[in-house]
């Protein structure tokens, strides 16, 4: 999540009311620049720098906090690694890792590969829902129905407060109908996952939407002869790249780690497969859990990278004033 916050701007005001939206558009001096960029007057940057210097915790405190947080995260991971390295006859070796790739065990581990396949399919479908349903909806609300922004936000953040198990109870009858209509393929879980990733995807995209002046960019493009397709693909998508990418990556991470819904709705994904295999071979389950963790970690790292790279490129200080 650390990477996510960097991609976004603190929301400026509440463009909920048209008046606020109008005044925001009128007063925004440099709305098209990411917030990291210096304001045209350049007066803001140094001030915020000074503030941060005074309110930041002292160095020692910083290290203590980092140490505690690090331990909380590292101890379980380290013990997982230690566990997977235990040789059957005592001592440590890589036998559990090699066993995973041994063709002789193919049958035993087959559910895992199937689960992995299912999870990837789900990840792709969920990302498609985020990119082609959620993002356009949010853009539409920003441009045409600014009054709906708060309700939409509420709706999108709602899943955070609903435990997965409650969601499943509600979804079960719906999935009966879905099963009859389009089959019980594992991909149908994407509908449920589309809901569970909403809060994360919404935050990522909204932060980016707040950082650019969607309305002015759209109107500029329209006045230059762009149809709505061009506005979305050639103007908005490139400027929402960071938000869309973050939303996609975090959705992938959430989907790959999901267990409850898949299990209760009787679909096979990576986590349910791990659960099954865990009963026969706990080592392999832990190895895969570690790999999934590593994958998620790399994804988050990528999110952070994407954010800073874009911010850097756009905010390169200009050299000569007019």
């Amino acid at each position, binding site marked *: 999540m650390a990477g996510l916050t960097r991609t976004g701007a603190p929301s400026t005001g509440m463009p909920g009311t048209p008046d606020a939206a109008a005044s925001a558009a009128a007063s925004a001096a440099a709305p*098209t620049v990411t917030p990291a960029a210096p304001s*045209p007057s350049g007066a803001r940057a140094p001030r915020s720098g000074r503030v941060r210097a005074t309110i930041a915790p002292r160095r020692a405190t910083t290290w203590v906090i980092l140490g505690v947080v690090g331990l909380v995260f590292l101890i379980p991971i380290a013990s997982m690694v230690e566990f997977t390295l235990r040789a059957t006859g005592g001592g440590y070796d890589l036998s559990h890792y090699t066993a995973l790739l041994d063709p002789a065990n193919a049958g035993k581990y087959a559910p895992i590969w199937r689960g992995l396949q299912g999870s990837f399919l789900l990840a792709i479908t969920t990302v498609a829902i985020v990119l082609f349903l959620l993002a356009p909806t949010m853009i539409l609300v920003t441009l045409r129905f600014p009054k709906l922004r708060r309700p939409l936000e509420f709706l999108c953040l709602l899943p955070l407060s609903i435990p997965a198990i409650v969601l499943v109870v509600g979804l079960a009858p719906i999935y009966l109908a879905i099963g009859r209509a389009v089959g019980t393929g594992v991909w149908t879980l994407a509908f449920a996952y589309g809901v569970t990733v909403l809060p994360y995807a919404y935050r990522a995209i909204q932060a980016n939407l707040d950082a650019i002046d969607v309305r*002015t960019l759209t109107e*500029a493009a*329209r*006045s*230059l*002869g762009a*149809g709505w397709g061009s506005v979305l693909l050639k103007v908005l998508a490139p400027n929402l790249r960071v938000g869309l990418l973050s939303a996609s990556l975090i959705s992938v991470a959430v989907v790959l780690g999901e267990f409850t819904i898949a299990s209760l709705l009787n679909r096979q994904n990576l986590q349910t497969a791990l659960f099954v295999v865990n009963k026969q071979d706990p080592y392999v389950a832990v190895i895969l859990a570690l790999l999934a963790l590593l994958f998620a970690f790399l994804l988050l790292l990528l999110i952070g990278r994407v954010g800073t790279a874009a911010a850097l490129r756009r905010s390169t200080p200009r050299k000569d004033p007019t």
Partner: protein
Amino acid sequence: MTTEARVTHAETAPDARTTGSNPLVASGIDGASVSFRDVVKEYGGHRVLHGLDLDIAAGEFVSLLGPSGCGKTTALRVLAGLESPEGGVVRIGGTDVSHVPTNKRDLGMVFQAYSLFPHLTAVENTMFGLGMRKVKKAEARDRALAALELVGLRDFGDRYPAMLSGGQQQRVALARALVTEPRVLLLDEPLSALDAKVRVQLRDEIRRIQLRLAITTVFVTHDQEEALAVSDRIAVMNGGRIEQIGTPEELYRDPATPFVADFVGLSSVIPAEAMGGHATVFGARLPLRAERPDGPVEVLLRPENVRLAADGRGEPATVLESTFLGSLRRTRLRTESGVAIRMQHSADERLAFGDNVRIEVSADSLAVR
């Protein structure tokens, strides 16, 4: 009038940077006429435009001038098709464009807010509209560079908007709006975010380019000085209506309403008695510019129509404040009868708070309110 203004401007324009060989200038632009007929616009039941009527000739530069919230931007947005009016007709080049979407209206638009696409360089931004019109890449690039040259930024083509100053960004936005050779150029306070010096510079540049391309231009501003400086005609708006439309000279000399008199230029309001088409102000009997029945009237005096009088003549007054403005001084006075007067005079005459002077009118006729 229009042609007169054009000639003067063309001659005085600093033309060093751009030469006559610029392809954008050479090809010219066929400006189209614009007309608003009884246009009504409401936001949630609140009426913002009350039956707006406005005719703009092809190639004309018309400013919409008025205080904040009077509906200037709204009028421009209706013309651009970014807002749909509740009533009335908007025509561009004689055709009703009510059902033509913005992207098909063939307009160029520069916004108050910086509107360059942040992910594209200056030249790519400028090429955008050409891309939408399916112009080939190489040709689009040449034309974009020519447009950037027109605004004096040919060497800045590879910069991203964040690497340009505010004034440069607005210049690129202008180039981007002009490169497609639109029929109408719409400018919504494009200069308001810029500092005073750049504002004047870019304002004159916009006017110069407009004259060279002969492009129909609607310029929204709340700065009367800006409007006076560049426009063929000015439409003064107030509360969603046009109070008066005319050349800068007409508006300045003969404001049709008190609002226009107040808004365009500084003026002092002086109570007087009308008698047979004349009124007496500060001891001088002068003809009224508009017909009024005999009785009390209010006449308007511009600061330059008031001067210091020789001893014994004119009206005694006390200096309230005197401001040095470089080549001249502007002084606020109060006459013995309690009327507030603004006077403009040579910087050599140093007046200070509390000085007692005598003033008289230097005009040969009087504008009536």
